[in-house]
Structure formats: structure tokens, C-alpha cells
């Protein structure tokens, strides 16, 4: 059987998610061959827990990118999340209040980003580059550049605890995945996000509340980031003013690797999830193989560039084929009409 006519091959060629899934499986197979400790339960759970932090923030980031904007400030938002929750935790002693405080901060921080982009019409790249610096600086000023220790030991179990064999963080990420999937595929809000990302001008003239939706998306994104920041603070049992430095790059890379187009409107939750899994497993695999973290950075960079390039080539070949087919059809039609 000719491989080009193979049904599976055609399906893979047309589906981004299948390509990513295939890449993920191949990656896992290679690493498990090279390192026997990869497929142990402990390592798997550990890797998943690491990925969860990216994922919790990443699903929010995905919505922001889908609506055609970007949020570079997530790294310093994590620091804000840690500080606000730990401060509230230490004053009230209540874990619930600590989490609520972090999430409320998310609403404020997200609303600021959102208003800068919608009301003041500042390009989101610039606006969030600004807030990235502002929140980092504010965190340093507020803490005097020293970390704040948690005085409630139970707080740590939030991130390090388990439900059965599964870490809490993984469960939170799983729930967020489910919610995002549902919102994007089955709700009016998700549909509007895709429409606005696909063509903001058309959306506006179709009478969609473009600014309102963008604002809400920024707020949701920041709340997700706060959640990941709280988890981080919980794992370290302290609030670090330097927490999350460079985190925005990890998150955005994963989302882009998952096929979410930076121009907005294109991409799926499953793609984003696979992007996160691939980057996470790659990092874990390289660590297991004793590759230095500097080389890991280089590898990660190459993988992202390569992935986007392959995507362009793949789409290009499909498009070329379509054009060729259409031309052929036209020519046939032309000769028929002339005859």
C-alpha cells in the first residue's frame, strides 16, 4: 500500500493535534529507551507536577493569545500571587483566605492589563512588557528583596499533597483543562473568543462586545496565573519576590508549540496541552540524561523554532496542493466551456 494514500497518514497530515501527539509519543519512547528511570511512577508524577504549574497558567495564556493579545507579565504576576497569599496567610492563618486573596489580586492585575489594552488601546505586547517590569519592581519594593516564609505549615500541602497517587497540582491543572475545553468548544464565550481573535474588526462590526470580552479574558488569564503563583509559593512554603522570573517564556513557548497562532483565533486546547507535555517531558528527559540546564535551554529554543518551521512547511505543502488542484479543475472547466 502506498504510504501517501494511507488514511492515517492523511489524517496526521491534516491535524495539528495528531502531529503533536505523535511527536509526544516518539519523544517518550526515545527517552524511556535512553533512561530507564523515565517510566517510573515517581518520575512520571514528578514531571506531571512540574508541567502542571506551566499548564495552570498556560490555559489562561492560551485564551489571551486566542483572542489576539498576549500577556508577558505572567512571570512577575506569579511573584505578586505568592506575596499576597503568604501575607494574608500569615496575618489571618487561613489557607482559604490566602487563596482568595491571591485570586482577587489576579482580578486587579488582569483588569489593569485588560484596561491598558482595551480602553487605552496600548498594544498588549508593550502594555504587558510594562506591567512585567512594574510588578517585579513592586514585589521587590514590598518585600525589600527578601523572601517571606509561610508560618502555616499546612499551606505547603496545597501543592505538595496528593489525592491517591496523583499530586494536587495535577488535579488542579486537569480541572482547568476540562473547563477550558468546555468553554472554548461549547459556550458562546468561547465562540466569541475565536471570532474576535480571527478578525477583531469584523467582530466589532458584527456588534460583538470586543473590549468587554478581551478584558474578561485578561482577568481570567491573570487569575489562572495567580493560581499557579499560589501553588509555587505553597511548594516553596514562602513568597519569593524573584519567583517566576522568565516564566512567561516557558508558558508562551509551550502554548505556541501547541499550535496556538500568535495572530489569534487559531488553536485548540488539546494542542496547547500537548505543547506543554512535550516541553515538560523534554526538560525532564534531558535532566535524567544529565544534560546541563544551559544545554536544556538551547535545546528548548531549537525545538520551538523547529516546530514552528515544520508547521509552516506542512501548511505550505497542503496549500500548494490545494492551489494546484484548483488550477487543474479550472483548466478542465475552461476547456469544457470553450468546447
Amino acid at each position: 500500500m502506498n504510504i501517501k494514500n494511507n488514511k492515517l497518514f492523511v489524517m496526521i497530515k491534516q491535524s495539528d493535534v495528531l502531529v503533536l501527539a505523535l511527536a509526544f509519543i516518539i519523544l517518550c519512547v526515545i527517552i524511556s529507551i535512553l533512561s530507564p528511570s523515565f517510566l517510573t511512577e515517581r518520575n512520571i508524577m514528578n514531571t506531571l507536577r512540574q508541567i502542571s504549574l506551566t499548564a495552570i497558567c498556560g490555559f489562561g495564556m492560551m485564551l489571551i493569545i486566542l483572542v489576539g493579545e498576549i500577556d508577558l507579565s505572567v512571570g512577575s504576576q506569579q511573584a505578586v500571587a505568592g506575596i499576597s497569599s503568604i501575607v494574608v496567610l500569615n496575618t489571618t492563618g487561613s489557607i482559604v483566605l490566602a487563596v482568595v486573596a491571591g485570586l482577587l489580586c489576579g482580578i486587579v492585575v488582569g483588569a489593569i492589563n485588560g484596561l491598558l489594552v482595551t480602553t487605552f488601546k496600548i498594544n498588549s505586547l508593550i502594555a504587558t512588557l510594562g506591567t512585567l517590569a512594574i510588578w517585579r519592581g513592586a514585589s521587590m519594593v514590598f518585600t525589600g528583596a527578601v523572601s517571606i516564609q509561610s508560618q502555616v505549615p499546612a499551606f505547603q500541602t496545597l501543592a505538595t499533597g496528593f489525592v491517591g497517587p496523583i499530586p494536587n497540582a495535577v488535579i488542579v491543572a486537569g480541572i482547568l483543562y476540562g473547563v477550558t475545553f468546555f468553554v472554548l468548544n461549547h459556550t458562546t464565550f468561547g465562540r466569541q473568543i475565536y471570532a474576535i481573535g480571527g478578525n477583531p474588526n469584523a467582530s466589532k462590526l458584527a456588534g460583538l462586545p470586543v473590549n468587554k470580552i478581551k478584558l474578561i479574558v485578561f482577568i481570567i488569564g491573570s487569575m489562572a496565573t495567580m493560581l499557579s503563583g499560589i501553588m509555587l509559593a505553597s511548594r516553596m512554603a514562602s513568597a519569593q519576590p524573584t519567583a517566576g522570573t522568565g516564566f512567561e517564556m516557558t508558558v508562551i513557548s509551550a502554548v505556541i508549540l501547541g499550535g496556538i497562532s500568535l495572530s489569534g483565533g487559531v488553536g485548540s486546547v488539546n494542542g496547547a496541552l500537548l505543547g506543554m507535555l512535550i516541553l515538560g517531558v523534554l526538560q525532564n528527559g534531558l535532566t535524567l540524561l544529565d544534560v546541563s540546564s544551559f544545554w536544556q535551554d538551547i535545546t528548548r529554543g531549537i525545538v520551538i523554532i523547529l516546530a514552528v518551521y515544520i508547521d509552516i512547511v506542512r501548511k505550505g505543502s497542503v496549500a500548494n496542493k490545494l492551489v494546484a488542484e484548483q488550477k487543474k479543475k479550472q483548466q478542465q472547466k475552461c476547456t469544457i466551456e470553450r468546447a
Partner: protein
Amino acid sequence: MNKIPIIDIKGMNKIFPGVHALKDVDFNLYEGEVHALVGENGAGKSTLIKIISGAYDFTDGQYFVNGEDARIYKTEDAIQKGISVIYQELNNVTTLSIAENIFFGRLPAKHGRVLWKQLYENSQKYMDMVGLTMSPKMKVQYLSIAQQQLVEIAKAISLQAKVIVMDEPTSALSCKEIEGLFKVVARLKSENVAIMYVSHKLEEIFAISDRITVFRDGQNVDTMNTNEIDQQVLIEKMVGRKMSDMFPVRLPNIGEVVLEVEGLTTAKVNDITFNVRSGEIVGFSGLMGAGRTEMTMGLFGADRRITGSVRMCGVEVNKNSSYACNKAGMGYLVENRRDFGNMPNLSVKKNMTIVSLNQISKAFYLFPKKEKDLAAKMIEKLNIKTPSMDQLIPKLSGGNQQKVLLARWLIKQNIKLLIIDEPTRGIDVGAKAEIYSLIEELARQGLAILMVSSELPEILGMCDRVFVMKNGSIVGEFDCDEANEVTLLERAIN
């Protein structure tokens, strides 16, 4: 004329997905002549120009320049062969000076340093030829449209153009500016340049051309010597069919006032006052740049409203909010589908339902079956040709895309007013008639319709009342029975 034509096109065919834009077209152009090309919108004039200029390749046929196979595959090839096109939308870089525009991409330079003195001297020479009197250092953005056009002509001359194609050159010019342009054309002609002159305006064509070619539905109907025919003959050839074949019979069912606009003023239009009643089709006519689209943008909350009020069924509509306009029962079918209409990442179905999601959902949850049923109903009702409702919208032909966007507003339950900007732009003739009858049917069912159009037959064939705009203001109102093409055009120009 026994000379070899400078441009000779034989048996040309061009097929776009879903549109046969040129059918077996023959066309030729001799040096030192002005050859006018006329035809309605969508007749294939622009397509031919784009093939001549190398912007499009053709499906089938032959294209000779000076008797040799043209081998023009891209616009640079055409420029090399001395063919310059001045498009309706001018291609100047407005932030650069006149001189830089004339010598764009070919600035005189030595060791990478621009020789400004030489540039300005050379530019001055070409500017004199076309009658531009200002300094060559002046930025193009400060020039009028007519002057910008002259800059492009100067550029064409500087490129040693043997053929200059002008696409609707006078559509945005005043009478005096048109005279100036004609002088330049006459001068070019005396220097043996071949000019292809594309225009709607018959008076101009008779004033300036040597030969006239009429296009209709992608075919060359006839090529005639200008001095052997009159306007009557020309119009008959252009129209070719009775208008009644194209437009549905209008059975007005006019009711209460739906839309009242009073003193609407934005940065681009001033003091617009009119109303539209239910079941009525109100047309807006005028030249390009008269502010019609800008008026609808201001009306629909997309452009900032400075003063004035818009009322829907007596209730004031919040200003500067398309969302509020949508809520109040307005719909807006845009002129530029690609940039302002389609959501290219979404399917036909999703493009249709995007403004009516509340009708197929409960507490945010979308009911997939309701959505499918609704889309299927619309595809059948509007006879939309698509392989499936999940096809992405950019893959459809222009006419079908337009129908999808029309369906978008038809699905909306509380729609009372539909604003349609250029309902048939970029749509082939068959689909045009369908869209006209749809619009008529909607009006008959009581929808108020505001239709902006540059095509006079369309305005006259469809509307009950017509407003003519010029320079951002309304300059005339006509009942359709008392208006004809001449009265509308006169009002739009003077």
C-alpha cells in the same frame, strides 16, 4: 491601422474559484491612441488590467507585447516592458517626498549615498511634464488626490512607459482637475504613448478616447471607433440586457419609521439627517470618497460620533458602540468582506451564527443541534454553494461569502434595520440577481434597508428613495421614480 499593436491579447480566459472573470477576450492597443474600456462593475475590466500588469496570471489565452509573447509573470516584468498601471487606489508612499515617489526604488546614488540634488532636478523635469508646480521635496501626503495621481503619471513617464493604464482616474477628481488630467493625457498621446483608459463616465470617454471597447460579464462585447458611435449605442452595448431581468419587481410595503438619524457628525461626515421606514429600501449614492461608508460607520457606532442622534423605533441608541447598535436591532453588511466581514478562522456555520449566539444557547451553553439546523436552513434558503457548513469561509466564492454574511443578519431575531454597503461588490452577475431578490424579499417582509452603492443601476433598480452624498454631506434626496442616472450623477459631481 496596419501597425503591430503594442499590446495584443487573444482568447484570454481567467477563472477564479466560482467566477469566470474573462471569457475569450480579445483586446489590443496601439501606440499613440487612447483606448477606453467601459463596462459595469464586475464586467472584468480590473481583471484584464491586472493580467496586463502581471499582477494576475491567466488561465488560458495569449498575450503579446510588440508582437512577441509577453512573458509577463509579475508586475516588475510589465514595468520592464514599459507598461505602467495607475490604479484607482493610488500606490504612493504618502510619507515620502514627491521626488522619492517618482524614483521609488531607483534613487540616483553613488556608493550607497543618495544624490539628492540630481534626484530633485530629475524629478522637476517629470513634474513639469505633468504640470505639477510644487517643490519635489514636498511630502505626498499633503497633495490632493488629483496631484497624487499626477505623481504616479510622472513616475510612469520616468519609467519610459510606452503603455499607461488608468483605472478610473477621475472618480475622485473635480471638474477642473479632470480637465488638467485630460491635458496630460493629450500630451502623452502626442508623444506616442499608448493609453488604456478605464472609466464609468461616458462623457469623459467620448471626450478623450479614439476607440472604445465594451466589456460585459467578462466578455468583449464590441470594440468601436469613438467617432462612429453615440452614447445611446454605447449604453445599450454596456447594459446588454433589460434591467428588469436583473432587478426584482418592487412591491413596496412601507410602514412606520424605524431609523431616525439627526445631525449625525463624525470626523468624516457632517450633519447627516434622514430616516428609513420599515419595508423601505433607502439608497445612498455618490462618488468614491463622498463619505457614504463613513456615514454608515458613524451610524453603526464604529466611528466616533461627535454630535447628532440616532434613534431606532424612537429609542435613542448609545453612541460609539456597535454592540449597542446590534442590541437595538441594526445589522451591518460591510463593503470590505475580507477585512471587516469574514472571520477567516471560522466555518460557514460559525460565521452565520456569531451575532445570534444567544438564540442557540442557554446560560452560555451552545446547543450544537440548534446551530446546525439554523445554518442548514440558511444554506438552503439562500442557496449557498458550499461543500459543507463546516467549510472555512475564505474558501467560498465572493457571492457565497456575501450570502453567508447576509445570513448572519437574517438569523438575528430582533433585526429591524439592515445597513448594506455595496451589496454586490466583487460578485459575479448570476449571484448579483439572487442577492437583489433576497434584499427585495427582506424589505417586503418589513425590514428597513439602508443600501449604499456606487452602481447607479443598482440604486435605481432597488431603492424607493435615494440620498446623494458629496464631501461628507447629503446634497440631494430623490424619489426613485423621479431620478435617473444623469440626475444622480450630476448631483454627486456638482
